[in-house]
């Protein structure tokens, strides 16, 4: 079946290029015309066509609250595990973000410097930031930067202004919150050998 048969919008390739990387298309994203792409997918006619088209190549467009992403039909377990591992690292990050004086929520704009400054001034936050395990940056600022870069790569944040290094939280952050909220943490009692630290429901 050819793309023309679906009367697809001309941004189809662009949409695929973003979402096939595992990224989201959020309505409040502005870089690379993300909001336009969102509008394109959000158009009911386009959505049905795109869905039908992508289903052929075993992708399914999932609709979140003001964002879209791909889910793979029959995804192998190994991929799922990788995904889960990715989410695991976000638990501490979300915890840090939610503990800030002004909680970082969808639409928030911030600079890594501000977060680092607040963490520096608040022991609790500093500990939380230092606890985040993936990063090796020496200064708090760099650590926050790396977090922001990671989140930007995963399309939860957007570097809105490179000059001022200002980030914006995208609508896809809801997805992250939902997944992380769905994680139930069980304490390891040590009684069973296969005791799991995390259960995803």
């Amino acid at each position, binding site marked *: 079946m050819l793309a023309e048969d679906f009367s697809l919008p001309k941004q189809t390739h662009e949409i695929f290029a973003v979402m096939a990387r595992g990224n989201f298309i959020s*309505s*409040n994203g*502005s870089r690379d015309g993300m*909001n336009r792409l969102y509008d394109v997918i959000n158009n009911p006619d386009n959505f049905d066509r795109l869905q039908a088209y992508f289903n052929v190549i075993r992708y399914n467009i999932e609709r979140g609250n*003001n964002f879209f992403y791909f889910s793979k039909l029959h995804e192998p377990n190994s991929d799922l595990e990788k995904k889960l591992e990715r989410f695991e690292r976000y638990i501490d990050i979300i915890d840090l973000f939610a503990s800030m*004086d*002004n*909680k*970082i*929520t*969808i*639409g*928030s*704009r*911030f*600079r890594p410097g*501000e977060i680092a400054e*607040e963490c520096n001034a608040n022991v609790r936050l500093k500990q939380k930031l230092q606890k985040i395990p993936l990063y090796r940056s020496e200064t708090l600022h760099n650590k926050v930067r790396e977090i922001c870069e990671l989140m930007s790569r995963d399309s939860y944040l957007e570097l*809105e*202004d490179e000059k001022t290094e*200002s980030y*914006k*939280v995208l609508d896809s952050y809801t997805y992250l919150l939902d997944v992380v909220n769905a994680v139930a943490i069980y304490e390891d009692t040590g009684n069973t050998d296969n005791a799991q630290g995390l259960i995803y429901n």
Partner: protein
Amino acid sequence: MENCRILNRIVEINISNVKYADIELSGNTCFVGTNNFGKTSLQRAILFFYSANSRGLGISPSQKPFEEHYFRYENSYIVYEIATEDKPFFVIVYRHNKLVFRFVDAPYSPDFFFTANDEAMKIKEIISNFEKRGIYISNQIDTFERYRNIIYGTETDKQLSKFHLLKGNEKYQNIPKSITNVFLSSKSSVDSRFIKDFIANSLTTESSSIKLEQVERQLRQFNEKYSDIEMYLRKESQQLIEMIDKKYDQVHMLKGAQMEMADKLGSSLRFAETQNEAIRESAKKKEEELEVLEAEHDAQKEHIESKQNEFREEIGYYDRTIRDANKKLKEYKEKNIEQAVEKNADREKLQVELNIARREYESLTSNVASIELKYSSLIEQLRNDKSAYINKINSRTGEVFNHYNELQLLQKNEYNKRDAELKQKREESLNEVNAEVTAKQIEFNELKSEEKVIRNTRFYEQEIRNLESELAELRAVNYKNKSERAIKQNMVQTLQREWEALELKLKSSLSNRVNQTNNEIIKIRNEIKEIEGKLDVQHDAFYGFLEKNVKNWHQTIGKVVNEKLLFRTDIAPELKQEAADTLYGISLNLEPLEMVSKSIEEYQFDKNERLAQIRDLEESLNQFQTANNEEKMLAADKYGKQLGELKEDVKVLAYSLELAEKREQKLNHEFEDWNNRAGKEVEESLSGNRQRLNLLEEELSILSKKKNLVLSDFTHQLEKLKVYSDERLSELKGKQETEISELEVDKKNHVKEFENKEEELVKEKDSNFKSKGVDAKQLKNVEARMKELQEALKEIEQYSQIIHDYLKDKRETFDKLPDLIQKKEEYMKSNADLHAQLEESTRKYNMKRMELNKQKRALDEELIDYNNGINFYSNNFRDTPVYTKYSDIIERAESKRTNYHIMDLCTQMLKNDSHFSEEYGAFQRFVNEFAGKFRFDNHFNFVIRNDASQGEYERFAQNLRSFINENKIELSVAETATQIGLVTDSIATKVKELSGQKDKIQHIISLIAEDFKKAEFEESKLIEFIKIRLEESDNKVYKLLKRIQEFREENGLVYNEGLFNTDFATGQKREISTRAVKLLDQLRTAIKEQEQEEIRLQDLFELKFNIKEGMNETGWTHKIDSIGSTGTDILVKAIIYITLLHVFIKESSHRSSKDFKVHCIIDEVGQISAHYLRELLRFAKNRNIMMINGLPNKSGLESHYKYTYQFRREEGNNVRIFPSIVTEVEA
């Protein structure tokens, strides 16, 4: 000397590193020198003569500017000598801060500039020299523009006007531009783009281009505004706005409540702190008052009770006396005392009657006294015996009687004694019980009165009254607020209606104006079309025929012919000589007639005039629309602000009503609570009383039972005693009666014996009397009467003692009974009064005591409450963030009594704060999400920083509310709608302006093509032909710009109402607007993709060449660098340049001005072959153009030039320019 005007010579004095150079230029000139020796610099200096623009000489920005590089010294000069038809003149260029010019009306001579020592003079000296010599030297020409005007013959100053090179027309600027362009582009490859640039640059000024940066900026601004509005109008955004508004209200309300509570807490704390001591003092005072009250009451009670006791004693005494009197009276009555007293009253009378009877008896018996005496003594004896016996018996009876009476008396006494004892015991017992009963009754009564007091007491009266008054005040305020809200809502509706009406008016006036203007434009367009139709067909029509064949036809046929006829192509006019100056053979005097026909220029003028009218109409429509928008904005500003304020007021009122309602509910609740508490308090107080009352009642009933029991017991004992006593008495009486009756019987028997004996004696006496003649019968009667009287007296005598006693008692007691009763009653009344007094005083005392107790209890409770509150505040509130948050309010609050407990306030504040945090978090989330939807620099300024304070978040919500209330989105929509109109209009105008020059291009191209045709290439057969043609531009941006212009013309100026999906967006309007937005968006993308800075004239068309050189034909192509060898390319390029230059000079100079020559400066022609060069020079010469070329070295080519100059570097880096001795082969 040539007989035409030409730049004859250039002289450099102290210019750059040339000390002096005098170069002749009146023919083709060639500069030979290796690179960097100053060839180009000299060529630039020549170019400067033509262009007089130091910025347009191709000096790169990294190099020194022309002024600094060339004019290093005070005495640096460039002199340009211009040959004319008669004598030459020259121009001096020197630096006087900036470059200035002076014209000198004389041929150049070095003497003018140098001293005897060959030193260049200063300008002042030079000028004075000229003046001395009487040579005219112009004033200083300060501007390049003026210099150009002089050189190109457009100067109006007569003194200067002669110093011209040629007479240019209004387009003379093209000549220096063309010469410059040839020079500047001589090194580039030959590309049609260059030719385009050349032509375009020659035709346009720098400003006649569409600056894409500016367009992009306009588009970006529009696009950003459009996106902002679109985002704002989205459903999700509207939902978020609602949520923000709602949450803001909640947060605001909670904050207000918290602040109010903080204020109350602060007030309560201050009050508690200040009141602690005072309350303690008051409590102590109350206690003392209570003690005093109790003491007073006890004293009064004691006093009244002692009085009562006295009264009771008196009452007892009177009671006893009255009872005894009554008892005696009863006893006397039982003894028929009244009869006895009555009989006693007859005693005296009976005694008198007895004495009379005795005397009568004595008189009767005086004759028979002895007999009488004998018998009387016998009878008397007998009687005495009898009396003695009777007496004896009587005494015996008396003894018995007395004995038994004594026994009875004893018995009675015993009984009485026992009875009295029992009664006393009974009395005592009863008294005991009664006392107990009385005490209980008193207590009972006290409790009853206390209950009454309690029932009449309003507990928490102050609080309830406060609440009542607060409720009343609140209701009054509510009522006021409600009516105010209704008024304001009415005002809002009225204003909204007014606003809508005004908007409608503005809208309709705009649409009327638009329609009117569009109609007018259509009308004018039709007229233009008509004129254009005429102009198009005029060549082939009657008009064209007349133009070609009839001289001054406007003066003849033009006056009589129908205009329509002039433009008919089907009437086949033919010139017939015989009918000349006649109308079908009839001669007419046409002098007085006006001309009907118009010249082409007049038609052109008409067309231009109409176009100007359209522009004016559009301009005025634009202005009208702007004014309309402004009016709209003013209205929005005026009404929006008012409405916003009113709506805000309504909201505030609604909010305060809501608060008031809540407060009322709360107060009602509190009121109920206080009432319940008061009721409970009453119940609690009463329940204690009731229990005690019940107990007392029970006790009283027990006591009454006990009393009854005691009474019955004693009655029983008394009855028993009485029965026993009665039995004993009756026994004694029986015995007495038996013994007495026995004695009586005995007595009777003996008396009878005595009476019988007496009778016998009487009979004997009577018989004796009879015998002696005495009336025995009368005697007997007297005796009987005497006896009777004696009996009566005896009977009376019997009751004498009792009557005596009775009379005594009567006198002493019975007669005083009423007084006694009255006295008793008086005492009883006084006692009752005292009792009432005591009761009243007890009641009062109880009330007062209760009141004091209550007050004291309240004070104690208050104190406890305050202390507990302060402790709670210190331990559980002071260290929390809530305190920190509201510390200002708490610490600054005035000391004031509130109806709230400190502890409750603290708890409530802590509870509220957690609720507030939740609500505020949600509020913050909504604000972030909403602001995040917009660009950071959105034109609504919906931005919130991450570290924004609460105040900033609240201000955001307030601003958003004002934005909605003032309907600023409408303004923004109107602005954006105007902006899209302006943007498209501006683009359309610019495109139109630029496209307008396309005709000129077409004209130039046709001239060039003609010129190419005229070229005598055939002679050498080197170049067979050079063809040039114009094609449509394939510039994407320009195409889009063009589409926008077409769109603008198609749809007129106003198509903004359907810009957004608002109420008035109709289908068609929406479609047009969507197309406009889409076009602008495409243009913006294209500008971004193309990265072009501006759209110039050259972007409007494509130029293609077709050149055939020998066997090579390029075909229609943009580039002509692949024609053949490099030399061929240079040749073709030079030919094209010369052609261009020729065409432009021809176009830009006055027709009368023909005798002049200009130079074409092309550097680096070294690779051209001699044959070609010759061809080229001839080609130029035929067009009155002299070539100035540069060669890297001598190669024989220089022989084709009239002048050849060589460059040599000397000591001190100076360059010497000297003429090379060559012979011109052909010039």
